[in-house]
């Protein structure tokens, strides 16, 4: 056995070295150098004693008063607070998102047309785009603020179903409107889908008591493959803002690569594994009060719906060669030109953002293993800046704005 590392000494000191405990103890008896090093560590750590247990100050009356004041403060205005605090308010909010979603991109299209003639209409475009893209953020807010994280109550299930619908409205609407168009049903199919989703909340959900560790491992493994492919895709979309010709060249190379049978199988297989393992983990990642976990869960929901729409569109619909495919045509860069293409702008932008959030949150957790918290925080800020820049450049390119053509 070679010499022990400092970290192994620490684990041994705290009895956290598991099955190696006997081997470590034996080594410490036989190796004078390690024994000395361990003794130095043990001497220092044993001298770090906890502060003596003290009586808590008798400040119960003060705490009572403070809780009274704080609770009163929480129950009073601002006006929006009761809406966000109460379960009913959250529920109304999450269900309003899918109900109003068809109006949002119509408003986006109208405001874009107005902005073409009047430059003062630009803030209106930004506002309507935020409205159209707001669903997943509303979902995260609702899940984080919900009171309980079990799904035994119908009201909690209704809230979570609403959050799911709010999150996946953009891709789901594209699929539903495609079917709706062929059956000439207008918006009725969309509202029926919303009603169906609310009905699911009335039934008890199966308990997911199994361990998700194995699913998580497979999920991450398949995510690696997709990350390479999707990152290249996103970077190329961002290139389109700087140079359309560079984008076209890159796209043709990537298309040749991704259309190889082996590569295509790998990508489609990874997407299928992602969704199957994501579904198997179910709602386990959702937890009241845990912003990062909920952000990862919601971005996962969105990505599943996005990839299903994007990658499997040719398989889902019998006429992929038709002019109105569900997945947007990638060389179509003026998405604000028509009301139908406008619906693809929030869908694509949220796809990019969901991917960056989903990968970013995992990368942050992984980085915490190797780096100090302060360094991870600084890296997170830098990553957020880069991510925002990428989303903005992709957005500008999709709106037909290019530095060079």
């Amino acid at each position: 056995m070679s010499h022990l590392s400092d970290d192994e000494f620490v684990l041994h000191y705290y009895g956290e070295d598991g099955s190696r405990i006997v081997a470590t103890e034996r080594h410490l008896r036989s190796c004078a150098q390690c024994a000395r090093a361990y003794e130095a560590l043990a001497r220092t750590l044993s001298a770090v004693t906890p502060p003596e247990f003290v009586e808590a100050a008798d400040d119960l009356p003060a705490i009572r008063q403070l809780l009274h004041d704080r609770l009163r403060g929480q129950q009073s205005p601002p006006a929006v607070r009761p809406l966000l605090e109460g379960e009913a308010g959250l529920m109304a909010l999450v269900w309003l998102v899918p109900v109003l979603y068809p109006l949002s991109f119509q408003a986006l299209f109208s405001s874009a047309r107005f902005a073409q003639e009047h430059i003062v209409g630009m803030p209106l475009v930004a506002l309507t785009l935020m409205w159209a893209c707001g669903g997943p953020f509303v979902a995260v807010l609702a899940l984080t603020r919900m009171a309980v994280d079990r799904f035994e109550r119908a009201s909690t299930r209704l809230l979570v179903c609403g959050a799911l619908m709010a999150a996946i409205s953009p891709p789901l609407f594209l699929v539903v409107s495609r079917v709706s168009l062929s059956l000439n049903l207008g918006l009725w199919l969309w509202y029926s889908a919303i009603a169906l989703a609310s009905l699911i909340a009335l039934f008890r959900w199966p308990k997911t008591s199994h361990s998700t560790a194995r699913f998580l491992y497979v999920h991450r493994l398949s995510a690696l493959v997709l990350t390479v492919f999707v990152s290249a895709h996103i970077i190329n979309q961002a290139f389109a803002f700087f140079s359309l010709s560079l984008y076209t060249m890159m796209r043709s190379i990537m298309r040749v690569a991704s259309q190889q049978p082996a590569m295509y199988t790998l990508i489609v297989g990874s997407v299928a594994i992602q969704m199957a393992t994501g579904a198997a983990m179910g709602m386990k990642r959702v937890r009241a009060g845990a912003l990062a976990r909920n952000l990862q869960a919601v971005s996962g929901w969105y990505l599943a719906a996005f990839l299903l729409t994007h990658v499997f569109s040719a398989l889902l619909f019998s006429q992929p060669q038709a002019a109105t495919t569900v997945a947007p045509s990638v060389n179509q860069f003026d998405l604000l030109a028509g009301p139908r293409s406008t619906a693809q702008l929030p869908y694509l932008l949220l796809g990019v953002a969901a991917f960056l959030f989903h990968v970013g949150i995992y990368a942050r957790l992984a980085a915490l293993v190797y780096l100090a918290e302060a360094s991870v925080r600084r890296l997170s800020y830098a990553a957020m800046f880069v991510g925002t820049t990428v989303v903005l450049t992709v957005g500008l390119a999709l709106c037909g704005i290019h530095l060079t053509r």
Partner: protein
Amino acid sequence: MNDGDLEAFLSLVERHRRYMYNLALRITGNEQDAKDVIQESLLNAYLHLEQFERRADLRTWLNRIVVNCALDHLRGLRRRPDRNDPRPLSDVVDTAASSSPDPERLVTSADWRRQVSAAMNTMSPLERVTFTLRHFEGCSINEIAQTVGIGNNAAKQHIFRAVRKIRLALEPHWSGQ
């Protein structure tokens, strides 16, 4: 929720308050911050009482709230450089190296407590919380990871870094002997 609910809640947590306070004190290192953490924890616990409904152990649930409130509190303090600005490790090491009394007596002295406190002030909030839970509270790494909401490996790494900082700050005391 009404006044009766609040009174019932306060009487329920009263027997755990001493332990909660001491946990907050060990994590934050001073009484005023510990009091702030306890107030915030009790408010959070009261507001999210529904989440406790069927959990078996009230103390475990309250501890988790205290730990996370303390973590938030420490992070908040770090964003305010006017308060509790952690000392650079080099300062602590210099101070430690300059004094080398009898180690037996040293560890019981107020000066030693100040040295330990200063060494802990060099830690990041997560390092401080994970170290406190492991070293003072005797929690396992698995428990710490679950309480703080990080992976087991991340919890281990934070403890390793915390121990490294403690050693760097305090070992000059022994090396002089």
